């Protein structure tokens, strides 16, 4: 009980600290920008640890962060091998292919009204094909190794990317388009000089949403058949062995990888769409 109360106090304190920092005079400093989420995260972890201990939650349901950390550190080689298999081979290649294909199709759709009318509704249909249905089929088609995982990722990132890219390519104002008309600019000229830059905020939106989908897709697809390596493989077999600490260690890897990738995308976005009001502050 004491631990539970302690957890609540800790939570209040962490939030108070963050309010002080974020509303304080140095809120813009890079250090503070980093510190605030970290404090938030650390608070969550501590509260978690205290609650698990205070409420005697069985380890097989929710292990304490300290247990997860121990497991993480002791299993680094395994985690690295799994990371390479799932993220580097499965997720990344699928992400690149899926987003690339979506961009291409978005351009096709943008070029032809006929295709827009015809393909978008069909695209909606593909979007909702649930991973649990597509993954077994794709494993059957592309084998057990990372190729089938990449295929699952392609299918799951394609539509979010397409919707965003199509919306983005329609983002120009009438005057901006008229200007291009007066220059009698060709399609590709106005594409590269007007529509693509104007679409960038939306495209990055799609890239960011897809990045997390890719990760999940690659991991989940391994539940439906895999070689004996990979994050999804490890998670599902560890659940069977009730090694919940291992499950969470893999989740930590996924979260770290996903966050880093997302951060990288956000950084590039800042560079590319510096002119957009949402980036100018």
């Amino acid at each position, binding site marked *: 009980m004491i631990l539970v109360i302690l957890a609540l106090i800790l939570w209040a304190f962490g939030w108070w600290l963050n309010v002080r920092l974020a509303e304080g005079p140095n809120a813009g400093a890079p250090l503070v920008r980093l510190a605030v989420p970290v404090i938030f995260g650390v608070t969550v972890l501590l509260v978690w640890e205290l609650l698990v201990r205070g409420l005697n939650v069985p380890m097989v349901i929710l292990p304490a962060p300290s247990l997860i950390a121990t497991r993480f550190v002791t299993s680094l080689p395994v985690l690295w091998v799994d990371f390479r298999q799932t993220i580097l081979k499965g997720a990344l290649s699928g992400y690149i292919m899926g987003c690339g294909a979506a961009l291409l199709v978005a351009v096709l759709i943008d070029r032809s009204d006929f295709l827009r009318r015809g393909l978008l509704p069909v695209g909606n249909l593909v979007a909702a094909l649930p991973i649990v249905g597509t993954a077994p089929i794709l494993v059957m088609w592309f084998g057990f190794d990372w190729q089938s995982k990449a295929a699952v990722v392609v299918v799951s990132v394609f539509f979010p990317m397409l919707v965003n890219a199509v919306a983005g390519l329609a983002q120009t104002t009438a005057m*901006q388009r008229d200007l291009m008309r*007066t220059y009698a600019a060709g399609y590709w*000229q106005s594409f590269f000089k*007007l529509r693509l830059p104007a679409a960038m905020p939306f495209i990055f939106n799609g890239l960011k949403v897809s990045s997390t989908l890719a990760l999940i897709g690659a991991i989940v697809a391994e539940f439906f058949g895999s070689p004996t390596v990979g994050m999804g493989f490890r998670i599902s077999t560890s659940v069977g062995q009730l090694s919940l600490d291992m499950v969470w260690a893999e989740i930590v890897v996924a979260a770290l990888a996903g966050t880093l990738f997302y951060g990288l995308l956000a950084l590039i976005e800042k560079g590319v769409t510096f002119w957009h009001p949402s980036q100018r502050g």
Partner: protein
Amino acid sequence: MTGQAVIEARDLNLVFHTNDGPVHALKDVNLTVEKGDFVSFIGPSGCGKTTFLRVMAALEQPTGGTITVNGMTPDEARRKRAYGYVFQAAGLYPWRTIAKNIKLPLEIMGYSKADQNARVEAVLKLVDLEGFGGKYPWQLSGGMQQRASIARALAFDADILLMDEPFGALDEIVRDHLNEQLLALWARTGKTIGFVTHSIPEAVYLSTKIVVMSPRPGRIADVIESPLPRERPLEIRDTPEFIEIAHRVREGLRAGHSYDE
């Protein structure tokens, strides 16, 4: 003046359909513009000046009548890159610096890199924006943005220059300066210029032909051929001929307004 018709509008009509009924923006407009003409359009706000300019540049489809540009349809002329257009608002692309905004048409029309840079330098100087090439549009004042958009239209060699209130946001001194520059450019290149303005002296000072429009539905109230010589020092504005034409324009304008003074 060669007497060759560049723009020829016959019974032009344009009706917009809006959520609360049709708006008759242009009604039975007839106009002939000859090569090398400097035509000003003047008229109350909302009378259809912008619309007419847009029709000329094939940005709007007339709903009735015909219009030809160099004997072609406006759209064919557009494809031949006959137009330089300055919009009523600056409309710079926010992701490009001023210099890159000016380069935009040059890139599209395939000018060489060296030529591009030289032209950008030249037009930036023309509109008094040297040193601002590296800034982004939102870092410039309204007037500076407008000047940048003028520079963008002047950077390449279009036969027909259409300018929609280009000097609206500028002070008199700069305006006088740019008026002179524009006249010099016109004399040098023999471009045909369509120019929308609200300033009567500006219209009279610049034009060979002044088109006075009357409001809703937009019609041409008067077309005044200027007897002023092509060579125009600023002082011409004090001559009786100038004041006489200005008076005629003012009368034409006033007729279109409802205020009874």
